[in-house]
């Protein structure tokens, strides 16, 4: 307990950093849930694809895992390139999953459980494909950022990497929020979320909206993947599993289908994990996360903010 | 007098946020009668059912059934007290057979535990047999017996409506609440349905009938309660209701002060 009090702000900063990544991935779950009312179980692999794609891009630039950190200008270029690569790859994966594993089932009006099985199949297949590709080894990320403390916040040191991650996550979420609120395509997503049948009657092309939703979720997951690579410096073919569960937990925590809920849930989950593991030990981190989820759902059965992207269908 | 009361709805008000769905509604149903509950769309008829069956808790007021206040009883407990209902938009168990649908209703009167089902103890076997016989008899009563083994999803529309009635009767109710049972029926089907309702009453059940179509209600009910915008605007014998200016205004959509 003393450790928590002594390091409260340090723990908060790391918790928020972690939570920002959860939140970005959670957005993908929430978006798809909003329009299709199903858990896109393969979203974790959409994320993993991004973590590999950004490394492949960096390798293509000739960066090795043990090379020193390049000059500042080049770092910006490299990160931008990696981000583009990861986002494109993740969005493409999401789209392929939609086409191959979901759309045929929608056409056949399959029961929800079957969507889940199909998604699980896609998840296994993608993750294993990477496993085979890299011989199930860890893949290290070239060094791009040397963490340096930038300033102190209530006595907690904040480094450049943490700043970048939180800032990038916030910018991406703002862009998504504006896109969904302001653009015609975004209105389509909201319309389908709220009432798919009326939306179809009003001339919204449901298939296109669904595809767009998967792409948006993929873009966010790709962004999260680059930030994850920067933060942890290593990825694995099965890295998505735990992260996917956490992100989904974050989405449910905030109220699935609710974009702001995903943000809130992600940040809260990151914070609670850090505080909890400070109190009872870091090996209990995941247990803290799940117990927190169960307790919240007992009192707020549809998450903290409720389901609002579309109203819950009875 | 209270001996004859089946159900007493006392000054029931129900609000959702700022919307008042029911506003001080009171009426009663006597044992063995067929009461019609009518009113234009959105008048609060189905909401009234939902309060009586425990789906909603009234904001104020109370419902007394067979001498007992419903209070905060759960939905399934109210069913076991003896109120059964059908649904305006049919809600059968689509992947179960017609027979199984009715047996679910009959199970409301059964007492076998999970363990006696697991080991097929004698009481379980006896109840299974009785439930099955009762369900078949009820399917026969509503005229769906020849489709007992078909899944509810695949039954024709009219059979689905009649199956709902059989399922509700299987729970062994004292009061049967029918929510627009004739919706979508042609005149011939409606006539047969009225006959069925009368037969159900003659078998000793009390019936509460929601119907949109006034002419239909006139033919079968003993008494009618009219709702509009969540308020009771009239109550009386069918003949009185037919000539009631407020009712006519409500149905023709004329504002009350103009009527």
């Amino acid at each position, binding site marked *: 307990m003393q450790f928590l009090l002594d390091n409260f702000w340090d723990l908060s900063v790391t918790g928020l950093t972690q939570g920002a990544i959860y939140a970005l991935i959670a957005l993908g779950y929430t978006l798809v849930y909003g329009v299709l009312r*199903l*858990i896109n179980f393969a979203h974790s692999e959409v994320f993993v694809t991004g973590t590999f794609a950004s490394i492949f891009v960096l390798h293509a630039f000739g960066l090795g895992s043990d090379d020193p950190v390049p000059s500042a200008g080049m770092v910006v270029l490299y990160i931008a390139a990696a981000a583009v690569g990861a986002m494109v790859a993740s969005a493409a994966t999401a789209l392929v999953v939609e086409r191959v594993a979901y759309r045929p089932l929608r056409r*056949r009006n*399959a*029961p929800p*459980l079957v969507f*889940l*099985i*199909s998604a*699980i*199949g*896609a998840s*296994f*297949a*993608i993750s294993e494909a990477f*496993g*085979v590709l890299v011989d199930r080894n860890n893949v290290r990320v070239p060094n791009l950022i040397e963490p340096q403390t930038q300033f102190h916040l209530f006595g907690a040191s904040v480094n450049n990497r943490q700043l970048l991650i939180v800032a990038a996550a916030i910018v991406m979420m703002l862009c998504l929020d504006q896109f969904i609120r302001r653009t015609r395509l975004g209105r389509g997503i909201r319309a389908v979320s709220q009432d798919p049948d009326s939306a179809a009657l009003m001339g919204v092309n449901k298939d296109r909206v669904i595809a767009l939703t998967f792409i948006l979720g993929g873009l966010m997951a790709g962004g999260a993947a680059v930030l994850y690579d920067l933060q942890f410096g290593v990825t694995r073919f099965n890295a998505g599993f735990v992260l996917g*569960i956490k992100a*989904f*937990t974050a989405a*449910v925590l905030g109220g699935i289908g609710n974009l702001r809920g995903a943000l809130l849930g992600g940040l809260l989950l990151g914070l609670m994990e850090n505080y909890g593991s400070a109190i009872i030990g870091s*090996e*209990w981190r*995941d*247990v803290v996360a*799940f*117990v927190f989820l*169960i307790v919240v*759902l*007992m009192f707020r*059965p*549809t998450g903290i903010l409720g389901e609002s992207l579309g109203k819950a269908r009875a | 007098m209270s001996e004859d009361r089946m159900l007493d709805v006392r000054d029931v008000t129900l609000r959702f946020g700022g919307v008042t769905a029911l506003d001080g509604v009171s009426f009663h149903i006597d044992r063995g009668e067929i009461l019609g509950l009518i009113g234009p769309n959105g008048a609060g008829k189905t909401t009234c059912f939902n309060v009586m*069956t425990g789906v909603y808790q009234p904001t104020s007021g109370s419902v007394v059934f067979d001498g007992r206040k419903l209070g905060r009883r759960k*939905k*399934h407990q109210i*069913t076991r007290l003896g109120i059964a209902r059908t*649904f305006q938009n049919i809600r*059968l*168990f689509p*992947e*179960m*057979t017609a027979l*199984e649908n009715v047996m*679910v*209703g009959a*199970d*409301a009167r059964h007492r*076998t535990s*999970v363990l006696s*089902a697991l*080991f*097929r103890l004698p009481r379980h076997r006896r*109840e*299974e047999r009785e*439930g099955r016989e009762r369900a078949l008899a009820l399917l026969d009563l509503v005229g769906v017996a020849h*489709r007992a*083994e*078909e*899944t509810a999803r*695949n039954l024709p529309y009219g059979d689905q409506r009649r199956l709902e009635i059989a399922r509700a009767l299987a729970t062994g109710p004292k009061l049967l609440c029918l929510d627009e049972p004739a919706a979508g029926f042609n005149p011939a089907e409606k006539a047969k349905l009225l006959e069925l309702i009368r037969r159900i009453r003659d078998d000793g059940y009390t019936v509460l009938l929601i119907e949109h179509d006034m002419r239909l209600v006139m033919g079968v009910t003993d008494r009618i309660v009219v709702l509009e915008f969540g308020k009771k605007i009239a109550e009386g014998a069918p003949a009185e209701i037919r000539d009631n200016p407020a009712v006519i205004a409500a149905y023709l959509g004329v504002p009350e002060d103009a009527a």
Partner: protein
Amino acid sequence: MTISDRLGLADRLRALDDRRVQLVTRPRQWWNGLPKPVQWVAFGAFAVLLVLLPILDPPILSTPDSDFPTVLFIVGVYCLAALGLNIVVGLAGLLDLGYVGFYAVGAYSVAVFGSPSSQLATAYPWLVCVPIAIALAMVAGVVLGAPTLRLRGDYLAIVTLGFGEIVRLTALNSGVLGGAAGISDVPAPPGELADGSRLFGVIDAKPYYWLALGLIFVIVAASRNLERSRVGRAWLAIREDEDAAELMGVPTFKFKLWAFAMGAAVGGLAGAVFAGQQGFINPESFIIQLSILFLAAVVVGGAGNRLGVVVGAILVAYLPERFRELAEYRILVFGLALIVMSVFRPQGLLPSRRRAVELAARQDQVEAGVNV
């Protein structure tokens, strides 16, 4: 394409589907038409064949790269677990992604109460441990279910997923449960051979397979009894329309809790049998992916259909072992197979009993000249 073309296509698809149902229904009708004694003899012969399977070691079925009886035993454990999960998912329609948690509770109960190397003072024999394992798994089911069963489907899914992880991480992080190293010397079922060696030994997995087989028969019979009772009807009604079920007098919460408890009990039993055969368990054996495999077994065969679930479990557990030479790719192929299966056979491999009964009824009517 005109509308009538579309209608024609729909009819053809329906006819195709009916043919598939017939393919399963005909043998079933033929079987039901046989006289009772013939049925018993045929059933007995089939049972004997199953019992002799590990001794016959048939060339095509046999697994060249791993011990065949052990593979059969593992397949049996999967069948048990899938039968238990089928009660929760297939019958009551509750999406449980953390079923491995109950399996782990069962396995760890046997290990903690039975192993001399656990920290408990007395090491109880296997036969005492198994009822404890089942009881504790049921308690776990009720403890998890009571606060969470009011949640809607997808929320329940993530909560159960979390539960599965909580169980594994608790085992991993607490000393009493052996931590990452696990617990060894898990007791085996009793029994001795004529030469004084143990019946349930380390080398020969055949007795374990027979044990699992016997338990499968028991569980199939038990879940059949439940399914054909008011309990099974209540579960189906809850799956179909929970609110309507409640309004028809079904105490939905109570029966959902029972589904969880029954499913958990079978899962605990499967875990207890598994732990006995392994003789050693650690958290590695209870990863969440196993939950997903169990779920896949249930859905692949046709959720709610006992025979289908057994077939699904056999596919999920056996195929990867049979094709071990493709070890590198087997999960990849398995994943692709799940997608293909979902797309082309969304109702599972076997149609449900209801679907078959219904088709039979339709045929009867056609034969009787009733216009359908």
